[in-house]
């Protein structure tokens, strides 16, 4: 780790870090599992794939160097490294368990790994008992890898990459502005992944609209309460004066 850092321009040197810039990589990680139907045996009832992908299916290779999946110890070689994109792994099995997914980054980005946890799902909870060969069980989570104060080199290299969002942090509490708007090329970048038809779309719109509605309601109550408080103050004072 240290040797890596020394051979390349030291990413930890504070002079080369971009203050108040944030590189953010939206990712989706999860599993897709197919029931094997008639071919299912007692120990191999499902074929599943665990993966880490860009949220818009963009290639993560510019940031992620290697992904290590840690499977249940009952598998042969339960610790498996995937050295190049797509970062995914397929296996057959019969049981659900938690998969630890460790991401290693390119040296200019970060020398520390990041670990995610995903629970492999083979049996749908929404429709229990109805397994079909054609419709897989898909469980995905959205998250963002955040590199605060990235090194200049890294930022220059990835800032126009479709998988990456960059932000300038504003002073505390205020909203930060996005440097690069969502890259238009993104949709085109989508690779023809054999499983891509099952990938979920994660859009912040729904979440944002819910939040906006909630904030509006809360703010309304705040205003109402403040008015009441101030009018009550007036009344209180008059009561006090009367008392005096």
């Amino acid at each position, binding site marked *: 780790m240290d040797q890596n850092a020394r051979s390349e321009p030291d990413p930890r040197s504070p002079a080369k870090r971009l203050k108040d810039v944030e590189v*953010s990589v*939206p990712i989706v990680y999860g599993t897709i599992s197919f029931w094997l139907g008639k071919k299912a045996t007692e120990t191999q009832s499902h074929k599943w794939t665990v993966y880490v992908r860009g949220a818009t299916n963009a290639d993560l290779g510019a940031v992620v160097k290697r992904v290590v999946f840690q499977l249940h110890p009952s598998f042969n070689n339960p610790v498996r490294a995937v050295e190049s994109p797509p970062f995914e792994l397929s296996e057959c099995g019969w049981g659900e368990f938690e998969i630890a997914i460790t991401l290693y*980054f390119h040296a200019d980005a970060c*020398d*520390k790994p*990041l670990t*995610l946890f995903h629970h492999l799902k083979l049996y749908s909870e*929404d429709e229990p008992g109805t397994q079909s060969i054609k419709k897989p069980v898909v469980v995905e989570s*959205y*998250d*963002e*890898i*955040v*590199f*605060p*104060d990235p090194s200049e080199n890294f930022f220059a290299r990835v800032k126009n990459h479709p998988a990456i*969002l960059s932000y300038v942090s504003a002073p*505390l*509490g205020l*909203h*930060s502005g996005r440097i690069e708007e969502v890259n238009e090329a993104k949709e085109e970048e989508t690779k023809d992944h054999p499983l891509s038809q099952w990938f979920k*779309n*994660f*859009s*912040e*719109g*729904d*979440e*944002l*609209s*819910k*939040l*906006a*509605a*909630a*904030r*509006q*309601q*809360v*703010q*309304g*109550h*705040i*205003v*109402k*309460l*403040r*008015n*009441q*408080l*101030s*009018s*009550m*103050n007036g*009344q*209180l004072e008059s*009561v*006090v004066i*009367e*008392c005096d």
Partner: protein
Amino acid sequence: MDAKDILGIPKTTPSLPHEKKSRPPKDSQRKPDGISREVYALTGGLAPLMPSIDVNQLKKKTQAENEKITWQWLPFTSSARKDNLQLYHWVRVVNGVPPTGDYSFAKYNKSIDVIKYTDEEYEKFLEDPAWTREETDQLFDLSARFDLRFVVIADKLPYSRTVEELKNRYYSVSRAILIARAASPADVSGHPLVKEPYNLAQETERKRALSMILSQSKHQERRDAEVYAEAKKIMEARMAAKAAQDSELIPISTGGAGDAERDNVNVDDESPSNPQFLSAPPISIAETASASASLRKLRVYLRTYGFEQMVQAASSSAGLRTIKRVEQILQDLGVNMKPKVPTKTVCEEHLELRKEILTLLNLQKQFQYKEAEGSSYREGSYPETPGTPKSFQRILDQDRTFIPDSTCFGGEHIVKRDQKRKAPGRPTDASSSPANKRPRKLKNTDE
């Protein structure tokens, strides 16, 4: 264990000269036989209040085979008596041999050697303007007669002196004579009378404090408790105001709440009727700042992790109950406790929402405080004032409208979920509450 222990007073006063030094701790820590380890642990090493003797231990004490024990009514002599009075008692006789030796309780007949001073010594060392020779003589006579039971001595003396005064005179005289008679000061330096002189002022104060605590009436105790409770309430109100002020400093982004209202509240806060709501240094801002600073020190982190840290920091100044309420309100509003798509904007919006809810809760608290204040004014002096109670009630009712409102939201939330399951991705609007207009619009542009 003494009166101070019983009354829960810390032992700061120096112990009386005749008091024994406390035993070395290891004595008290050794577990006595016959008590189970668990029970002993419960006592914390203190001597039990009830005698704890293992019954089995008593039964075990079987007499030896060849012992023949009888109890006989026999005369005895005691070295503690000087009058040769013949007394009888029942005594245990083993194999027909009565016990010999002194009466077993004679050793408890302690007598105290009260110092006797000569005329010469008195003139030389013991002159005291506060005491006459006659008084001092009387004191020492009675001290010898009543074995230093100063309460009794004070009672018997023809002149009125406090117990402390008597003790002070007695100990200072004894001390002076002791030092005067010693060959060198070093010979008596270890003597308790010399080492720890009687402190009249301290003892008087100690007694006064004790009697004060003992003579406190129930009524006084209750009043004290009320004062403490009131002080606690004021402190809490100040904390709440502080927190409210903090969240006030964070601008509400959409500007939905007009500046006029905010100014209004600020003016109110500075009004003389409620000085406890005056400004205080912002806490939660500092907390969030330090949280985001420590996040930035990380080389890499997940957005969800950062989000959790910020949520924790923002609610660090709030109590557990407040945090629970915030989460309840979030749920009622149909907002995911943890964003499903935690983008930067979503997380920031979510944090803002939490701050606003905290502000709202603080306002509610202030409101209730004011309401209580108002009602106390009313009850205190104007119980029959018409009009005011009504308007207060109205305000209170309005305050509570938040809950019904939000349950409506919660209901809608459930409906939404159900529909989603059947037809994912379709925009759904089950209710037409005005607060829902915005989301609908946004949704249409989104999907």
